[in-house]
């Protein structure tokens, strides 16, 4: 084996990325449609952080086995169960979400009975309904922040590159957000406070990919003024391929540890982030760049003489 491994990656590749763009467009459209249908019909599977639920204060004559209790809650079908030690080791706070359609009081009673059956020495000291942890303000301010961030990133890319680049990047990142939320919705992953990190990470990683992609494209556009845009995009992607592979693998390895050994509590977040990294890489190549191809670029930055536009001007 030759070390370092980078030598195994061929120096020059000639994949025709753009050729697959129409296929990718159809593929993405189907996924987006599916995501939207799922998001509009069943929505996100909001957890107790967003919806509120029931909170019980329990006491036991011995230290409360928190982990066991959490596991039991899962088994008995109490949704999104949370267990926290509460004051003394002998007492704990149990929170869970009643199943949809179930009456809160009845749901609570069912869980209480099941708990007492499983732990006969457990007594329930108090019961109350708890509100959502996440206020409406957090959601609206979050969406506002998201919109502002996308707009400002658009402005920066416009300033550094061209408007078409900025639009391509924002559309592609938006595509990634919709698909990530769609995945959460379709897989019925419990959307909790922690889960908010997933779309944020996806935006960060995906935007990074887009900017790196554009940088190479911009450089090549300057270098090869007469080459059709389609070919320049393919060339830029091929030149960038080894970097994409190495960086993507690194990111996936970093998350892989937690995905496989992180346990059931952390799995949903890491799974979604992993999906987002793959989708973010995909959308740079197959959404952002083809969009630029469709919209065309202004290639007479530096020269006054008009240049014949490349493939972009042809249907």
């Amino acid at each position: 084996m030759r070390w370092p491994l980078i030598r195994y990656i061929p120096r020059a590749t000639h994949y025709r990325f753009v050729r697959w763009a129409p296929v990718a467009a159809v593929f993405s459209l189907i996924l987006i449609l599916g995501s939207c249908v799922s998001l509009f019909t069943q929505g996100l599977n909001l957890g107790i952080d967003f919806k509120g639920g029931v909170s019980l204060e329990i006491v036991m004559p011995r230290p409360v086995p928190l982990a066991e209790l959490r596991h039991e809650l899962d088994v008995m079908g109490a949704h999104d169960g949370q267990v926290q030690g509460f004051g003394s080791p002998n007492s704990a706070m149990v929170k869970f979400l009643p199943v949809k359609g179930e009456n809160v009081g009845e749901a609570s009673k069912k869980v209480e009975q099941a708990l007492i059956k499983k732990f006969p020495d457990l007594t329930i000291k108090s019961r109350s309904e708890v509100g959502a942890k996440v206020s409406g303000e957090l959601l609206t301010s979050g969406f506002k922040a998201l919109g502002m961030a996308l707009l400002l990133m658009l402005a920066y890319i416009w300033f550094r590159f061209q408007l078409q680049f900025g639009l391509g990047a924002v559309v592609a990142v938006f595509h990634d957000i919709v698909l990530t939320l769609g995945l959460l919705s379709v897989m019925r992953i419990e959307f909790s406070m922690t889960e908010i990190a997933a779309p944020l990470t996806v935006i960060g990683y995906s935007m990074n990919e887009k900017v790196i992609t554009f940088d190479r494209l911009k450089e090549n556009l300057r270098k090869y003024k007469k080459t059709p845009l389609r070919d320049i995009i393919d060339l830029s992607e091929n030149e960038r391929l080894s970097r994409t592979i190495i960086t993507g693998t690194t990111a996936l390895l970093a998350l892989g540890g937690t995905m496989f050994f992180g346990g059931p509590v952390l799995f949903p977040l890491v799974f979604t982030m992993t999906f987002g990294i793959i989708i973010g890489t995909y959308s740079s190549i197959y959404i952002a760049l083809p969009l630029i191809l469709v919209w065309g670029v202004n290639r007479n930055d530096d020269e006054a003489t008009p240049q014949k536009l490349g493939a972009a001007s042809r249907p």
Partner: protein
Amino acid sequence: MLTLSRWKIFAVTLSVIFGIVFTLPNLLPQKTLDALPGWVPKQKLNLGLDLQGGSYLLYEVDTDALRRERLTNLVEDVRTALRNEQIAFGELGEANGVISVRIAESGKVTEAASLLRRSIGAPLAGAIGGRDVSVASRDNQRLEITFVAEAAKADAAKAVEQSIETIRRRIDSMGTKEPTITRQGTNRIMIQAAGESDPEKLKNVIGKTAKLTFQMVDEAVTPEDLAAGRIPPGTEVLPSEDRYVASYAVRKRAIVSGDELTGSQQTFDQNGAPAVSFAFNGQGARKFGDATGRNVGKRFAIILDGKVISAPRINQALPGGSGIITGNFTPESAAELSLLLRSGALPAPLIVEDQRTVTAELGADAVRAGSISLAIGAAAMFVFIILAYGLFGGFAAIALFINVLMIIGIMSMTQATLTFPGIAGLILTLAVAVDANVLIYERMRDEANAGRTPMAAADTGFRLALVSILDANITSLISALIMFGFGSGPVKGFAWTLSIGVFTSVFTAVIITQVLIGWWFKVAKPKKLPIA
């Protein structure tokens, strides 16, 4: 770019020392830390509620106080409404939650009743519609005004919602503490804050209602009247916190209130004493300007939570809608008051019901599994980058390690709260940091393949990759700053980690790698790049 300039080596050494010194407290046992001299940094990473638990406070919204306040306001509303329509009345008062008033002319009773039905109280939320007060005619030309049954519930619910938003704003403006604030039952609010964050400090910030009003001092009331308790209707006596008098007689109607503030900062007055600045919105500024214009030479009282902080004399009309509040402040209490004013008043007082410690929300087992798995992920990342790029991969790994140290160091120093979503932000940061190195190395390979000498290839690689790295990181920083500015709670925490990471990553991936590679060129004098 590969020249080993003195400032580069200095910056690298400094950052490494910084990273180690500020990260170390996280690795040492508490006993060793306590034994160290005072100037050594001892702050540990401030883990969030999800990772380490913290303190728990249960508050009850004082709905009785809310009720009393609404009744008092309602009496004033009745007075104003009848006066404006020039309907003579008497015996206006409130007893046991019922406001009663006697209309002087028997012919005007019906008119007065319909006027009051139209104009006082608040619209009732919900499907029923109408207003939340009912007006009934009693014999002897009396009208009785009471709140409808639903009003109490609606008021309490609204007060709890508002209190939660206000508390969140207050705690958020103390830094990224990421508390959990939820409604419990109908009129309780549960607050959990991570770690050893001082519950007393938290209580100070949460427990104050911070209701600010500006009311005119009733100059007609002499000190003798005040002492004798001869107070005209529409005027009230409030205790004073300034050093001149024990209490003031002020008009009950506020000229402007804290609801109309747009900002407040801790500042100093012309004598250098701590003070609090304030600025009103357009409407508030107009009201304040009008009132000061009409009352030049008189005094107005600045009242916080029913106590007069100070009562300055109006020397001229103040149309600008801003000014400073002076009083018996220390810099700390002035800063606290400005924080409270910025975040808005609580609609009702809060009463502490319960206070305890709680364990991690995610559970100790999940936290343990998470830490181990993150370590595995990080190790895999290091091994992979070394396998991929050999010696240069090793340099990247060193840079990455220093990056981690610096991030943990800065997070410990700033005492920002690290939650699990924050760790996700950290992973993203590390991936992007590695990306910077990958970009540099790939450029070097391109240049070497194009036939440049190793030195020239390395140098050009850095130069060309730097453009992409800066573009990508500036974009990240833009989104992080926006999320920090507009987001709240976990979004803010995530954005903070990301912003720190952008700076440390560019520094470590570019400068530290440069120094390492420059040094290697000097020592090894290579004929060929190890990655070409």
